[in-house]
């Protein structure tokens, strides 16, 4: 009879054990804010479908201090999402090889952030043009 008795350590609370994991959990939790924002938009869309009064009601609700505070929180969380999303690119994307050399991770991440800023500005510009 074998005297082996391998001991399996429990996983509970693993994410508290290392700052790296804590950060991971934080950036994962931005998903809650993305979901909340998407639902806000969905409600808006439904109201839009219900006619002008309903839509205006939604617009009004968006002005409540609670809503403003919530959206500021969404803004921070989703901006952090964007920040980490591109930061992970060297991990998640195939390496880009230029002249036989792998593009440095800093370059990849930097390009991602730049793209995000440009996309945001473009969006603002388009909205502006449609509105004007």
């Amino acid at each position, binding site marked *: 009879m074998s*005297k*082996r*008795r*391998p*001991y*399996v*350590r429990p*996983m509970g609370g*693993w*994410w508290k*054990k*290392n700052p*790296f*994991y804590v950060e*991971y959990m934080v950036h*994962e939790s931005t998903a809650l804010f993305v979901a909340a924002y998407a639902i806000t938009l969905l409600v808006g869309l439904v109201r839009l479908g219900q006619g002008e009064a309903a839509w205006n009601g939604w617009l009004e609700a968006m002005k409540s201090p609670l809503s403003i505070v919530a959206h500021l929180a969404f803004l921070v969380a989703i901006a952090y999402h964007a920040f980490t999303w591109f930061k*992970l690119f*060297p*991990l*998640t*994307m*195939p*390496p880009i*090889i230029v002249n*036989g050399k*792998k593009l440095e991770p800093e370059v990849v991440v930097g390009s991602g952030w730049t793209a995000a800023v440009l996309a945001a500005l473009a969006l603002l510009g388009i909205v502006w043009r449609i509105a004007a």
Partner: protein
Amino acid sequence: MAPPVKRQTRKGKHPMSEQKIIEIEVLRYKPESDQAPHSEVYKVPFTDDMSVLQGVQYIKDNFDGSLTFRWSCRMAICGSCGMMINGIPKLSCESFLRDYYPNRITIEALANFPIEKDLVVDLSGFIEKLEAIQPYIIPKEPRTLEQGEYIQTPEQFSQYIQFTSCINCTLCYAACPQVGLNPDFIGPAAMALLHRYNMDSRDGGQAQRMELVASEEGVYNCSAVGYCSEVCPKHVDPGNAVNVNKINAAKDYFLRFLSPKGGAQ
């Protein structure tokens, strides 16, 4: 080819001789008498050139011969001596006591593996995963020995060479929570090795290996935590291998509806 070394080097240079005493707290587990692991603290005299491995050896040689751990090469190439050092998976032969002094240093068996005894973990699951990925050349164009070597251009060489540096130390498994949460997950190092063969211009086995990549034990267990690549002592970037293969597996998943033969079943 080697990526830049991130590791810190010492300012003070050559090891100095004065002896200091460091406290080493070791998580001990004796399967034949202990219900669960417990810690023991040892006071170890050390010099600046001593690695954590040498600290542990000192304990075995002088205090308690029953302390159990794996080691061999002492030069960070055989991959035996991984431990959790202050909670971080590291090769104990290339971690130095001086970097922790005067604080106490805690040592534990690699996380996410069952502990067999003290610092020795059960690696059989990992070895099965290595074997499962078909880690050998499945020739694209077979060649006889008389025909000599395959030609491999620097570009072709650079595609896979990084993923050949894995020493199977399993630090990345200890770093990956998804391995802990689902022990069947094929995991970072095995995927890096799979990717190594897929990317080799001599190999034509990518389609054969897809079944595993795309399976329930495969790449989609990874949630891009990325700590695997962070702790890898050989800069293999196993996390990248896993994540790139998510893309490959997704292509295969959708394309199989289009192509007559399809990918994996």
